């Protein structure tokens, strides 16, 4: 009997925090599907008032208005793409956190990769040239060998 009580207490102590954690997460879970959808779209749109924040993150009046617009458009049955297009029509590509690939944004999209390739190319060319400039392995002449031996021998004696 006592064992059983102990077991029940242990189970409670293990499960207790889990229950508490669930209770904590509740407010997020109650966020409706619609709100999640609004946030998902808003996270890809730049707030023009505070330019390094998304509309989802920003509390600027304009960001709140735009979130309301998104909510309303979703209610009207517009698709995500249509809503994003609606924003781009008014505020330009700048509202997109992921700018589209087109002629004016080629440097933005591929510039870093191009610079990396250029850097690698220059590095390899430099290494290849250095390898060429290095003298081939020529065996030491007898005189050189003698001199090396003398120097090494001196070092040996000094270290003793």
């Amino acid at each position, binding site marked *: 009997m006592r064992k059983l009580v102990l077991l029940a207490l242990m189970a409670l102590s293990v499960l207790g925090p889990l229950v508490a954690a669930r209770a904590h997460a509740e407010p997020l879970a109650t966020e409706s599907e619609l709100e999640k959808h609004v946030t998902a779209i808003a996270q890809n749109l730049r707030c023009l*008032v505070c*330019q390094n924040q998304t509309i989802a993150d920003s509390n600027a*009046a*304009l960001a709140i*208005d735009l979130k309301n*617009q998104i909510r309303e458009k979703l209610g009207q049955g517009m698709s995500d793409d249509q809503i994003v297009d609606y924003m781009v029509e008014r*505020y*330009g*590509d*700048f509202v997109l956190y992921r700018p589209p690939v087109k002629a004016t944004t080629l440097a933005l999209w591929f510039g870093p990769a191009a610079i990396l390739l250029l850097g690698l190319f220059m590095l390899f060319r430099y290494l290849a040239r250095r390898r060429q400039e290095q003298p081939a392995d020529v065996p030491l002449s007898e005189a050189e060998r003698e001199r090396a031996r003398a120097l090494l021998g001196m070092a040996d004696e000094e270290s003793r």
Partner: protein
Amino acid sequence: MNRYLPLGIFAVIAVFLGIGLFLDPREVPSPLIDKPAPAFSLPQLHEPAKTISRDDMKGKVWLLNVWASWCVACREEHPVLVEFARTKTVPIIGLNYKDERQDGLRWLAQFGDPYLLSAYDNDGRTGIDFGVYGVPETFVIDKNGVIRYKRIGVVTPAILREQILPLVRQLNGNA
């Protein structure tokens, strides 16, 4: 030649960063330039019973100036517009953006009213259609209702003289 390579790279980077310093990140090119102005129909600020719409201005070159009583930069701009309105060069329509009617009216009474009339955009929806994000903003709209120019921020006498006026003259002359 290789000795000067780091210097060359530094110079290129310095030039690009230098250009970056003089760009204004707030100046975002508007996609609305050379597009028809968004249709709107709003109550007037002074006479709520009457409306003003885009098509009321058809056949005229006009300015749309977005302002609000809560907008500090608008106070800086306002004397320039009041002065300009006296010349009667071009009708200026105000868009009173996300403001309370009483506040807007008091503001005009206090600082002068350069506008032919003001549209009252309480919920800011027309503002969103015009891509407004930094009040004050000023649009030049041609006789066909097409937006030809947009200024985000304060209209200074220099901008008025060098950009807006020549454009208005050209638009009035050609059509």
